[in-house]
């Protein structure tokens, strides 16, 4: 599942301190070509600081970072040629029309007019209007088109779906997946876990500036506890008859239990009984994510 060439984004011991505040600490990360990498964490975890370090907007306290093999400080111009940035704060010129704004940044980044038109159509954007008259969602569409119109190997995307309606969010997801299929890399910083779950191949979870884990979404979710509720028409299994299950509650013919890890043994054990109803809750990335944060408070 992990896509091809490695090292499109590499950080080694990347650290940024503001006085005594440790915004990012010893970040070791490697994001591959053809991958959507989710960078998760609540507000203030250091996600945006990491992106700013990757863009050379901040100088690291120590450590290094590179994009497409170019060091972001020593070879800043070359590394920024490889990247397009979609920031969390829109950065708009209110007095411009959408078209003027997009054309301005196209002159900087060498974007193609055809790609721009395609994105405008797909996101259902009217770029002829003044930006100051646009709704929050339409402003965000302009920001998205501005960033994605550039033909670059790496896209740094920070909280991209703010203000977008669900249909546009879906279309945005499809566009990111196409970018991935083209072999490009998307570094998606978000605290919207459903977004990361549906889009990302791997995620890194950041806590207080430290990377606490990097895993594929599938393995992160797969490692979680699943809850089962089963109704039996005949005998109800006794404790110990369902290998690997921890029984939580018995209520007549109904049994509630949870399984950690693989459910294979439990399913096979259930086969020996007459089951009339079975429900299970799919573990979510949110649960996995919250585990890392509940560990912190314990």
């Amino acid at each position, binding site marked *: 599942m992990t896509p091809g060439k490695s090292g499109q984004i590499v950080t080694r011991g990347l650290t940024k301190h503001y006085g005594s505040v440790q915004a990012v600490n010893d970040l070791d990360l490697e994001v591959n070509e053809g991958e959507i990498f989710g960078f998760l964490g609540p507000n203030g975890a250091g996600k*945006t600081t990491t992106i700013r370090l990757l863009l050379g907007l901040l100088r690291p306290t120590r450590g290094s970072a590179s994009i497409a093999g170019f060091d972001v400080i020593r070879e800043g*111009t070359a590394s920024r040629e490889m*990247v397009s*940035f979609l*920031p969390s704060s829109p*950065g708009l010129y209110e007095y411009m029309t959408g078209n003027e704004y997009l054309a301005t940044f196209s002159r900087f980044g060498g974007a193609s007019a055809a790609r721009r038109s395609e994105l405008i159509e797909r996101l259902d954007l009217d770029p002829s209007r003044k930006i100051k008259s646009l709704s929050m969602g339409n402003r965000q569409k302009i920001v998205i088109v*501005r960033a994605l119109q550039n033909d670059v190997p790496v896209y740094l995307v920070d909280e991209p779906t703010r203000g977008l309606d669900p249909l546009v969010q879906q279309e945005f997801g499809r566009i990111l997946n196409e970018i991935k299929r083209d072999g490009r890399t998307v570094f998606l910083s978000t605290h919207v876990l459903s977004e990361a779950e549906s889009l990302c191949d791997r995620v890194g979870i950041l806590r207080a500036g430290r990377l606490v884990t990097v895993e594929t979404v599938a393995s992160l979710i797969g490692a979680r506890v699943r809850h089962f509720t089963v109704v039996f028409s005949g005998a109800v299994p006794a404790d110990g008859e369902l290998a690997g299950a921890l029984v939580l509650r018995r209520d007549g013919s109904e049994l509630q239990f949870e399984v950690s890890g693989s459910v294979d043994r439990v399913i096979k054990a259930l086969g020996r009984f007459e089951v009339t109803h079975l429900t299970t809750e799919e573990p979510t990335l949110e649960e996995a994510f919250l585990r890392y944060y509940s560990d912190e408070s314990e």
Partner: protein
Amino acid sequence: MTWALVRHALRTRRLAVIWFSVGMFGFSLLVMALWPSSSDIDFSAYLEGMPEGLRAAFLGSAFNEEAVVESFFYQYLASQYTTWAPLVLAYFGIWVGSGVIAREFDRDTLDLLLAQPVTRTRFVIAKFSAVILAAIPIIVVSALGLIIGVILWGEGVELSGWDTILIHVNLLIFTAATAALGMVFASLFLEPGRSYGLGAAVVIGMYLLNVVAQVVDPLEWSGYISLFRYWQPLEQYITGEFDWFNAVALVAIAAAGLFGTIIIFRRRDIAA
């Protein structure tokens, strides 16, 4: 890429350029339109009645020169035009010079611009170039207004067109120096309010320092710290020679400001 940045900076400031140009054209025209009615006033007596400091403020270092003392028109021009024009252009220089960096920061567009494949040195040079290009039309129409005004209302006035052009070349360099100062403050603070405020305070301080330095002998040296010390338009009219010393001094100040901005800005963290 650099030219695209220059064009972009000019575009973001085009309204300011239009309004300053209209204002300066109207101002220089008005100065000359009022000349016929002012020529009846005994301006020499009016100036002689002033304390030396105030006279120096109006006339610059040439305030005691014979040609100025004898020329009623020079006195009028100095007190009504060449005193105020650099103050307006200094305001423009500080405001736009700070703004090309600080306003971008304020509207969150600085991140986007610096995320482009451009070095910070080129970014600063592009922005500085844009400020100079923006100042040119303002200064040109200001000079034009003066020349047209002399043609329309300056009966008996002899004002060299060439000297007027050279004076305005100096005014452009003066504006560039103030813009470089504004950019230093913007690269230090990033916030527009602090950059404009401190820039304006420094310009006013320099103006006052220049006045004080001309009349308080022990403080004469301190005048050289002031940008206004290097703005001496009446010398040009009196001698008819381009004031190379002051022009070079202003260029050096602008270059030092630009260099300082580059040094500060290259190492500056751009934090939201």
